[in-house]
Structure formats: C-alpha cells, structure tokens
C-alpha cells in the first residue's frame, strides 16, 4: 500500500484509516521516502521524461491494483483511477497541471494495472479534489472493478453527470492504447450487492 499524496503522507494514512486497514489485512504501508523515487523516462511520452517516479514499492511486485475514489477535479473535470497515478509522480509534479490531459494520459500509458477499483459509493460532486465539505458528497452506491482503467473511468464519470467526451484525457488514453472509453464493448457485469 503506497501513495505520494499532496498532504503529509503519514498523516493521510493515519487520518483516513487506510493505514490501519492495511495493517489489519497484513499489508505494509510504504511512505514516499526520497530514496524510493527513481528518475524514469516513459517511451513515447512528452512530459514524463527523466522524472522522479515513486517506483521503490513496486520493484518486486507482480500484481498492481489501483484504488481511487470518484472526485470532482476542477482542472481536469474528474479524478478517478487514471488521475490517481499522480501519486506515483515526485518532484515538481504540479507543473503538469498546465497540460493536465496529457499528463493523465501519459500516466495511463506508464501504468498497466492488474486491476483497478473505482470507488463510487460516495462521489465528490464539487469543490474537489481536496478540501470541500461533506455536503459536496453524493451517495451513488457504485463500485467499479475493471482490468481496463480507461473503461472504468469512462463509466465512473457518469456518476458525476459527465460523459466520456467531457474528459479529453480519456480520448487521449484510448488513442495511446491504454484502454477503451467504450466500456459497453467489454460487456460489463452489473451486480446488485447487499
């Protein structure tokens, strides 16, 4: 379990309860220490060139699971599984906000997850991605599991009342063969639980 969040990482894992849940499940929380970042260049990328990537915890992993909530994100429209890989970037990553759609698409090119889980049980409709208040949340009772992160996000954005075409990074990721925005073509299974 690892992330490089905006706020202090150790506090985030403690305050959210993620750290406790991880240790109860037998997982280890890896904090983004400086020495776990490695300068990396993504082939075919325009932005991820010789950039510090939080690679340390994943060097020996054979499976990678991305877990993200559905959140309003003022700059890009929505933050979901693809945008969530921002937590792998180190350095002055905020500079990429100038070209947010390209960086999100490049993140989806860089990471091929085994599985992504998109948490849409309660989605943040506005004032995202940080701060905001409880009143910005809406209960949508949906959990999306997919091997295709682009498809997961293409469906996830509908919970925010958006269409895939509202998020330019989805088309860019699809063009880069990171997945498909046409989630129906993957024949998703909809199951009511509980």
């Amino acid at each position, binding site marked *: 379990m690892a992330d490089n969040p905006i706020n*202090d990482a*150790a*506090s985030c894992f403690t305050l959210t309860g993620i750290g406790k849940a991880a240790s109860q499940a037998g997982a280890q929380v890896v904090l983004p220490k400086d*020495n776990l970042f490695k300068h990396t260049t993504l082939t075919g990328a325009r932005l991820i060139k010789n950039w510090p990537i939080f690679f340390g915890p994943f060097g020996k992993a054979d499976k990678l699971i991305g877990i993200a909530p559905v959140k309003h994100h003022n700059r890009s429209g929505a933050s979901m599984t693809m945008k969530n890989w921002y937590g792998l970037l180190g350095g002055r990553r905020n500079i990429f906000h*100038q070209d947010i759609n*390209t960086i999100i698409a490049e993140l989806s090119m860089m990471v091929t997850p085994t599985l992504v889980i998109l948490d849409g049980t309660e989605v943040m409709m506005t*004032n995202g991605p*940080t*701060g905001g208040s409880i009143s910005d949340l809406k209960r949508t009772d949906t959990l999306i599991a997919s091997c295709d992160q682009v498809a997961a996000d293409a469906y996830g954005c509908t919970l925010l009342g958006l269409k895939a075409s509202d998020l330019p990074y989805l*088309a860019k990721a699809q063009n880069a063969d990171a997945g498909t925005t046409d989630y129906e073509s993957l024949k998703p299974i909809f199951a009511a639980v509980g």
Partner: protein
Amino acid sequence: MNHLNRYSPQWAESLTMRIVTARRISQVFFFALFAWFCIVGTAGEKFWQLRGWPVNWFLQLDPLAAIGTVLTQHSLYYPLLWALATVVLTIILGRFFCGWVCPFGSLHHFVGFLGNRKRPTAKKVELNKYRKAQRVKYFILVLFLAMAAFPSISATLQTGLLDPIPLVTRSFNLVLLPLVDRSANIASVTGRFYEGAWLIFAIFLTAVLLNLVIPRFYCRFICPLGALFGVIGRFAIWRIGKNQSECINCKLCEKSCEGGCEPAGNIKISECVLCFNCRQDCKHELISYQTVPSLAGEITDPDISRRGFALSVATGILAVPAIRLGNRLGSNWYHKVIRPPGALPEDQFLKRCIKCGQCMRICPTNVIQPGGITGGLENLWTPVLNNRIGSSGCQLNCVACGQICPTAAIRPITLSEKLGRDQFADVGPIKLGTAFVDRNRCLPWAMNRPCIVCEENCPVSPKAIYTQEFFETVRDGILTIRNAGSEKIETVESSLSPGKFATGDYYCLIGDGQRLKVAANTENSIEIPPGENFEQIPAPGGKIELQVRLQRPYVDIEKCIGCGVCEHECPVSGKKAIMVSAEGETRSPGRALLLKR
C-alpha cells in the same frame, strides 16, 4: 565519615571511586535520555516515535525557562513546575544539574576530557584554574533577566539564545538529527530542512570545540543557566570542601576540576559543578562533600561586583528598546513572520518563546522554520512558517506545535479552536495570515496558461480560493478560414504548431458565436471533437479565434486561513505566484484587513 576516611582508607577510596563512577553513569544516562527524546520527537505511534514520551522534560527542568517566563508574564505554565525540583535540589546539593544531568555539560565534559587527557598534570592544573572571566556568565544572566524583568519598559525573553537546554535541543533536533537522518529517513519520511541552521550548527560546534582550549569553556564562561545555578547554589546545604585547613598544596585536586573552582584554596562554591574529581584526586582524602564550609575557607558568592551587576542591569534595560528601534512590533512589522496556529500576540509571544525548536521538530510537514534576524533580532530562531520548505503548508487537522510548546508561546489549542468548530464556531477558524495572488506571475493570469493548483489544494471548506472562467485569444490566434467541413476547419495561415492546441484546453470561436473545443490541429487546420457539430459550417473568408480556456484564481479573504498549502503547491517555483503574508492573522487584530461586519 572523616574519621572513617582516616581509619579505613581502602574503604574510603572505593567509596570515592563509586561517586565519580555514579556521576559518569548519571551523565551517560541523562545524555542518552536526552538524545532519545530528540529521536522520538517524530509524530507516530511506534515505540521510537512520539507517542507519550516526555520530550520536553529537560526543557521543563530548566529553571531559566521558568523564571524567564515568570518575569516577563508573571505567570508560570504548569509543566515548568518541574524546574522547582531542580531549584530545590540545587539548594540542597549545589550545582548537581551541571555536573550530573545537563546533556550539553556532559558533552563539554567528555570533549574536554578527550582533548586534554594527554597533557601533563601541571598543564591540566593550569587549564582548570579559576579565571576572572568566569564572571562573564553572570553578566550574561543578569543582562537576560533584566531584558525580561521590566514589562513596563518592554520586556523580551532572550535567554533561549544561550540557555544550554534550548541551545542543545535545537542543535540536536534541527542540525545533528537531520544530518544523520539524511539517508536513513528514520526520524522523518522526507529529508528535513531548516533555514539558517548553519548558524545553529556554527555556534554548537564552536561551543564544543572551545573545550579543546579550556575544558567546559561554555559552562565556565558563558552559560547563563550555570550562572543561575551558581547564584542558587551559594545557599547549598552540602558543598565540596576541605576537611582540614592544612595540606601540602600539591594541587592535584585541581587537575581535573570541571568547574574551575579552585578546591585547593578558597573554593568558589558557585563555580563548583560537583564533578567530585577533586575528591578522587586528593591522595590524602582531604576533600569531602560536607555540610560545613571548607576548613581552608570558601567563597560562596559569585564573583560579580556591584558595579558589574548594575551595568548588566542597565544594559539589559536599554537593550530591549534599542533592539526595538527597528519598530518590528509597530508599523514596520515584518509580513513574513507568520507564526504557528495558536501563537500568542507578538509582544506576548516574544515574552515566552525560548527558541528551543521543539515546534519545528514536531511539525509533520517541516513548514515551521527557525526565524532569521530580518524580522528583528528577537525573531532569531523563533518559529516562522516558510511555505517553500517542507512537504506541505500548515496541515488543517494538526495542532502538534501548540501541544509540544514547552512555554505556551504557542498555546495548546484544540482542533475545534483551530478550525472554528463547536464552541468556537462564532469566533471562526484561526487565521495565520492571508494568501495573495500575484497576477503578474500567476500562470493563468499573467501567461494565459491553465493551472489552478492553488485552488485544488485549498483545504478550506468552502474553498477560500475560487476560480472564474475566461477565454483568452492566443497570440496570433485570429485566423482566416480557407475551407471548412463538418469536423474540420482549414485556415489560410499555416502558422500553427501541430498538436499544440489539442490538449483539451483550447477552443475555437467561430465569428463571435459558437465556441468549440479543439480536438486536433495541424499547422493549417483545426479539428473539433467527434460528436460535436458546427451550428452552421463556417464560410471561407470568415474569421475564427483560437482561444485558451482559463480558470483564474481569486482569494476570498474572509475564508482564507493562511495555511500556505497553496503557496507550497504553486508551480511558479521561484517567487511564488500565490503567497501568504501575515496580514489578517487572528492573533493580531491590529493587522486585520477587513472591517468587522
């Protein structure tokens, strides 16, 4: 006991061995304990993290911190009651703290021992003789206390500059630990940085190296806490002294004398740090720890003349207004002195802060920094927020600095008070300052580049930073239509950089009506996204404008709490395009920006 000494010298010798050994064990123990408290000052739940370790204990034992704050504020922050124990024990035992407890003293003791151990005995005796300059520490003490004692003139607490406990605390926490931890990352996840730490290091190193010139140089000549113990210790019930008036005057007792108190002659009680080396070194067992004055005579009072005392007091009284001639507490207050949440109003803050650096050590994001002298001489090493350093600004759900502050210069506020919730709902959240957007540097304002990292990161609810949407025509962005299809416009000009406008942030305004997103571009064509349609196919010869969609940030100063997260995250990395300054901070109503409604 004296007659026992005479009749069973071997027993007595083993006893003297034991007391020096006990002193060494005590020094190692308290030094290790102090170092341990520095290491565990990291927020966390593991046994080597903060949990409930009493990391302030040495600062609380320090009577100079207690007396200083009582003088300036006429009140005692209750954890400093520990200092009473030190004072009482000093009255009974003498300067035990210096010789047995003080971690800085033990460091000097050890380095002085190492540096001088190979010197001939005569040289050692010479090194450890009493020097007139040992009175300087009393002048320093009186000067500091005089600066603190006259609130009617304007008092300030500056003992922390030289008080050994805050000094060694900040030296360990802000310099040594980050240096050692640089690669290990045990005490903090990311490397810690402290602005101006070089000065703390230089002073620490100088103090330690001076032991090579004269052992315990700092303790003998500079230490104001040692001076205070010297003053209190003159009343000590037990003291070192000779149990016979005559001796062969071999001076071996002064060979390893740590205090430079001349036990061979008229021992200077206020200088004695109870190292007991004299007692061990006297081959004739003429030196005892006793309740009667030395039979060879003793001098209890510190060597500070009435004139020296008066001059020190006068200097102290003049020093405060002199320091304040810069008017840093008045209209010339320095806007970058942003204090941690819960900090007292500035004049009161300066009466309490002992510059120990504990708040800087505990701050999980490293945003609290030792202040420099730009904010006034009194600002040196006091806590100031520098949002350019650390992992983030001041965290919304954190009050660690006020909880650890040993003197309540930063009050131990609750989260409710910080965030203005519950019973503090009427008062509102604590503001540290206000963020100002620099429209000449902000990417969307000055350079027509999308960004709004500041707005995204604003932790306040509702956000204190909000945006408004603008469409700005790019440079040379007015183009003439050569031809148009249902999804594509070809332009007469072929000046576009291919792909540049396909980021999702660019639009094309047709005539002055419809605005459509640009999906792709070549040097002379623009495509709109699939599924989008022109209201009517643009006619050749008409104009289009290539526009960038911008969200430009604004700060709602009624909402902004000055946490600095925006400034930390701003990608304009030199002089930030959004910066917090201390205007509007809660603790200074006089610096309010807005009229009260």
